[in-house]
C-alpha cells in the first residue's frame, strides 16, 4: 500500500475547564489514501467536527491537542508553528463548511476572493489568476462563469454558493479536503448535486476528502470508507458498503437500524436507549456500555481498541476473542 | 473568601450557588469583589445613617456656630470638639452630612431607576410584542427623547413641575419631582433594549405554544416574555443607578435639586465649592470623593454583571 495522504495517529484533544479536563477526542487513528473519500459520521457530541478542526490546527483555547500526531503526505503537521500551519491550510488542505456564507466575504466579489486565494498560493499574475478562477468556476458547474465571476455572494443561490466555496477550496490544488457538513444547509435536490460534484472532483483530481456529516445517506452515496464515531472515539471503520449493510459494532448496528429508509418495511425503528454521554460523564471502559444490549463484564473496565475484522476495524470486545464471543456476534449480525 | 467550601454531600443551595459559573466569575475578578464590597459598605452606611452618624446635621438645635470650619481630625480651636472629616461654616459635621446626603442620593437614584424601568420595560414590551403602528409610535418617541441630553430633559421636567406645584408644597414635593425628572429622562434606553429582546423572544416557539392554548397578549408578555428579557434590563438598571445618582448630584449642584434642608451629595458639593479657594477644602473634597466612589463601584459591578450575563463573552 502506498503512503496515505493523511494519517492520524492516536489523536487526542482535550478541553480544560475549571472543573475538569474534558476529552473530546480520545486516541483516534485512521488513514486516508489518495483519491479516497472517508466519511466520518456520528451524532452530535461524537467529536467528528473536532477531528476536522484538530487536523487543520484550528482548535481554540481552552481546547488543545493533548497527544498523537497528524501526518500529511509523510510530513507531520500537528506540531507546526501557527505561521507554517496557516500555509498548509488552504495550500495543502482545502476546507468546505456547512454554511457557505462563513467562507465567503459578503463585501467582495466572488472573483476577487478566488483570485486572491489563487495568488496567495501560486505565482500566477492577475490575468492568469482570473483565467484560472473562471476555469475553476466552470469546473464546479457554475453556468456562464465569465459573467458570474464578478457577482457578489448574495447574488448566488445556496447551492451555487456552495459550488463557489468548493472552487475556493480547490484554488491551490490541495491534496486533501475537509468537508464539514457540506450539504446540511441545502435542500434535498441541491444536496444531490453537491454530492455528485464532490465525488466527481475527487475522482478527476485524485484529491482525498474527509467528509464529516451526521447524514448516513450522504455518506452511503459519497464515501469509499466510513468511520463511525462515538463519544470521541472511533467505534468502527471500514468500507462503506460493509459498514452500512452489515455493521459490526453494536452502536453502528443501532445507528443504521434507527435510520428510516426509502426501502424496506420496518414497523418500528431500532431504538438505542439513552443518549450520547456528555464529555464530562463518559463512562469507564467502553463508552457505549450503558446503552449496549450485548454488554458484558469486560466492557465496564477495559477500553476496547480497534481490532481488525476482515477489511474493517471495530472497537468492541465482542470481536476480540476469536472463540465463542466473536462467533456469537457474527451470528447476531 | 474561604468560607463556603461545599460540604461533602448533599450540597446545599448556597453551596451550589457558590459553585455556579456566575459565582465563579465573580470570585475570580478581584476588582468586582472590591467594588461590590465598597458599594455595599456605602449603601449600608447610608441606610443606617441615623445609627452611625455621630451628629444629626439637620437638627438646628444641635448646631453650634463656634464649631464652624473645624479641620478634619483636629480639635476645634474654640470648642475642642473633633470632627472626623471636619465641619462646615455652621458647625455641621461633614461625616454625618455625607451619610445623610448619600441616603437621599441613593433614594432618589433607586426610585428614579425603578420609575424609568417600569415605564421603559412596559413600553418596550408592548412595542416589541404588538409591533406595527404602536411600535413605531413608541419607538419614535423614544428616539426623540434620546436625542435630548438626559440632563436637559430632567431640567425641563423639573421646571414644568415647579410651575405646576403650589409654592407651599414645593419643598416637600422636590424629592418626587426629582425622581420623576430623572426617571423620565432615562426610560427610552430600557424601552429600546426590551423591545429588541422581545422581538427575539416572541419569535421563539414557546410563545407560539402559549398562544396555542388561547392565552391573551398580556399574559403571554408578562408570564413568558418578560422573565426572558429581564437579564439585560438588570444590567442597564445597575449601571443606570450610578448614572441616576450622578444626575441627581448634577441637578442638586445646579441648584434645582434637593433643598439645603434635605441636602443630597450634590447639594453638599454645591456648598463646598464656595469654600474651595478659601482654604476649607474638606467641605468639598469628602462629599465629592464619596460620590465618585459610589458611582464607580456600582458601575464596576454593573460592568461585571453585563459580561457575566452575556453568553457571547464567556
Amino acid at each position, binding site marked *: 500500500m502506498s503512503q496515505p495522504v493523511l494519517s492520524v495517529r492516536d489523536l487526542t484533544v482535550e478541553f480544560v475547564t475549571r472543573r475538569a479536563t474534558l476529552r473530546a477526542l480520545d486516541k483516534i487513528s485512521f488513514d486516508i489514501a489518495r483519491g479516497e473519500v472517508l466519511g466520518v459520521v456520528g451524532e452530535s457530541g461524537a467529536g467528528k467536527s473536532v477531528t476536522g478542526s484538530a487536523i487543520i490546527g484550528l482548535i481554540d483555547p481552552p481546547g488543545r491537542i493533548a497527544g498523537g500526531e497528524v501526518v500529511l503526505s509523510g510530513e507531520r503537521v500537528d506540531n507546526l508553528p501557527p505561521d507554517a500551519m496557516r500555509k498548509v491550510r488552504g495550500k495543502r488542505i482545502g476546507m468546505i463548511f456547512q454554511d457557505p456564507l462563513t467562507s465567503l466575504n459578503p463585501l467582495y466579489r466572488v472573483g476577487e476572493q478566488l483570485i486572491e486565494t489563487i495568488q496567495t498560493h501560486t505565482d500566477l499574475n492577475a490575468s492568469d489568476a482570473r483565467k484560472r478562477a473562471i476555469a475553476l468556476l466552470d469546473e464546479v458547474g457554475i453556468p456562464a462563469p465569465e459573467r458570474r465571476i464578478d457577482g457578489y455572494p448574495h447574488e448566488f443561490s445556496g447551492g451555487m454558493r456552495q459550488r463557489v466555496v468548493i472552487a475556493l477550496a480547490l484554488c491551490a490544488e490541495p491534496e486533501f479536503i475537509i468537508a464539514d457538513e457540506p450539504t446540511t444547509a441545502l435542500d434535498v435536490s441541491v*444536496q444531490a448535486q453537491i454530492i455528485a460534484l464532490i465525488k466527481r472532483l475527487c475522482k478527476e483530481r485524485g484529491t482525498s476528502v474527509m467528509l464529516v456529516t451526521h447524514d448516513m445517506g450522504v455518506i*452511503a452515496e459519497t464515501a469509499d470508507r466510513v468511520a463511525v464515531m462515538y463519544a470521541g472515539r472511533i467505534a468502527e471503520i471500514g468500507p462503506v*458498503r460493509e459498514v452500512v449493510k452489515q455493521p459490526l459494532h453494536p452502536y453502528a448496528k443501532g445507528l443504521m437500524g434507527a435510520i428510516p429508509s426509502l*426501502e424496506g418495511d420496518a414497523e418500528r425503528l431500532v431504538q438505542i436507549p439513552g443518549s450520547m454521554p456528555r464529555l464530562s460523564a463518559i463512562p469507564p471502559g467502553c463508552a457505549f456500555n450503558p446503552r449496549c444490549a450485548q454488554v458484558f463484564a469486560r466492557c465496564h473496565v477495559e477500553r476496547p481498541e480497534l481490532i481488525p475484522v476482515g477489511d474493517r476495524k471495530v472497537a468492541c470486545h465482542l470481536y476480540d476473542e476469536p472463540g465463542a464471543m466473536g462467533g456469537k456476534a457474527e451470528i447476531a449480525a | 473568601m474561604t468560607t463556603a467550601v461545599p460540604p461533602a454531600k448533599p450540597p446545599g443551595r448556597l453551596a451550589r450557588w457558590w459553585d455556579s459559573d456566575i459565582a465563579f466569575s465573580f470570585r475570580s475578578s478581584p476588582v468586582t469583589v472590591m467594588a461590590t464590597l465598597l458599594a455595599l459598605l456605602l449603601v449600608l452606611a447610608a441606610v443606617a445613617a441615623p445609627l452611625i452618624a455621630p451628629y444629626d446635621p439637620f437638627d438646628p438645635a444641635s448646631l453650634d456656630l463656634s464649631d464652624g470650619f473645624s479641620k478634619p481630625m483636629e480639635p476645634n480651636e474654640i470648642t475642642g470638639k473633633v470632627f472626623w472629616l471636619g465641619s462646615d461654616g455652621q458647625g455641621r459635621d461633614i461625616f454625618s452630612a455625607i451619610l445623610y446626603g448619600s441616603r437621599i442620593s441613593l433614594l432618589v437614584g433607586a426610585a428614579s431607576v425603578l420609575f424609568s424601568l417600569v415605564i421603559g420595560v412596559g413600553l418596550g414590551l408592548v412595542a416589541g410584542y404588538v409591533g406595527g403602528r404602536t411600535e413605531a409610535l413608541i419607538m419614535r418617541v423614544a428616539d426623540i427623547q434620546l436625542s435630548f441630553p438626559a440632563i436637559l430633559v430632567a431640567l425641563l421636567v423639573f421646571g414644568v413641575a415647579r410651575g405646576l406645584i403650589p409654592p407651599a408644597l414645593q419643598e416637600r414635593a422636590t424629592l418626587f419631582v426629582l425622581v420623576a425628572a430623572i426617571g423620565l429622562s432615562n426610560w427610552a434606553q430600557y424601552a429600546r433594549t426590551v423591545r429588541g429582546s422581545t422581538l427575539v423572544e416572541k419569535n421563539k416557539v414557546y410563545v*407560539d*405554544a402559549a398562544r396555542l392554548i*388561547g392565552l391573551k397578549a398580556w399574559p403571554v408578555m408578562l408570564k413568558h416574555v418578560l422573565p426572558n428579557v429581564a437579564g439585560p434590563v438588570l444590567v442597564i438598571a445597575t449601571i443606570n443607578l450610578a448614572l441616576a445618582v450622578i444626575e441627581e448630584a448634577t441637578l442638586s449642584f445646579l441648584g434645582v435639586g434637593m433643598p439645603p434642608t434635605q441636602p443630597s451629595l450634590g447639594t453638599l458639593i454645591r456648598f463646598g465649592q464656595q469654600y474651595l479657594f478659601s482654604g476649607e477644602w474638606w467641605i468639598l473634597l469628602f462629599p465629592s470623593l464619596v460620590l465618585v466612589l459610589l458611582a464607580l463601584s456600582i458601575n464596576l459591578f454593573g460592568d461585571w454583571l453585563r459580561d457575566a450575563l452575556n453568553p457571547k463573552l464567556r
Partner: protein
Amino acid sequence: MSEAPLIQVRDLRRVFDVSKPWLNRVLENSPRQYLKAVDGVSFDIRKGETFALVGESGSGKSTVARMVVGLLPPSDGTVSIAGVSMNDVNVAQERQRLRRRIQMIFQDPYASLNPRWRVGRIIAEPIRAFQIIDGEADILARVGELLTLVGLHPDDAKKFPHEFSGGQRQRIAIARALASNAEFIVCDEPTSALDVSVQAQILNLMRDLQQKFGLTYLFISHNLAVVRHMATRIGVMYLGRLVEVSEGKSLFSNPRHPYTRMLLDAVPDLAMVGKAREGVKGEIPNPISPPSGCTFHPRCPLVFDRCRVENPPVIDGVACHAVNEGRVAAA
C-alpha cells in the same frame, strides 16, 4: 373511510407582504412585493391517520401547519375541525373548546420550552388554561402521569429545560401537547433537530401514543424517509402548492408528479450505496417571483406549452398537465 374527515382544509392561501419599508419604496421607486407562501391548498385528514406534508424550503408546508393550528390567520380559505370552521366561531368559550382539540409539536426543542419555567409548570400550563383538572395536587399527579407516558420520570417536573437533552426536551413538548387531551397534533419537523438515534426514539414514541390514544397527526417534514416511515397519506408541496397527494408507500413505489420523481431520485439513502443516479436539474426558484403556469415547469423534463401558462388543477391526486392528459404512463 365513509366517515367524515376530522380535518378539512379548503383552498387555503396565505400572502405575505415582503415589501421594503415605505421610505425605501418611495426613494427607490420600487413597488410593493407579495410572497404567496401558500397558494390554494386543499386536503382532508381522517381520524386516526398520519397525514404528512413533505417539501423543500419555501414550499409553504410550515405555513400550512401554522394556519391549521390557528397561529396564523389564512388570507383565504378555511380549516375546519369535525365540520366546525375556526372562522365561524365567535364565542371565546367555543374557540377555547376547539383549541383544546388541537396541539402542536415544534421543530426546535431548545426554543419550544420557556427556559425560565420548570418542566412541571410548562406541562401544567395547558391543563390550567383549559381548566381540565382543578386542584394543585391533582394537576401535579397528572403532570407526573404525562411525564411517565413520554418516558421521563415524574420527578423531572422539578427541573428546568436546560437540564435535558434535545430528545428529552422533545418528549416534554409531547407531554405538553397531550396535556390538553388533544386529539389532533400538528408536528412541524419534530425530529429534524435531533440525532438519528434520538429521532428513532421520538418517532417510535409518537407511533405508540397514536395507537394508545387514537391520535391524528399532521406531520410536516422535509425528510422523505421519515415521512415514509410515519405517514398514512402524503402530500407533496412545491412553491406553495400541493402537487401530489398519495396513499403512504405508493408515493414511493409509484410517484406520479415529475417533481416527486425528481425528489425521490435526489434523496441520499442508505439503500443507495454505490448506485449511480440521475442528475437533478436546477434549484427552487425565488418564491417572490415564481414561474408562470405550473411553477415546476422550468425544471420539469415533461414540460410543454400548456405548462408555461396554465396552473394545473389537482385531478385524482396529481397536479400535472402531463399526467392528467395521459402523456406519461402513470403505471
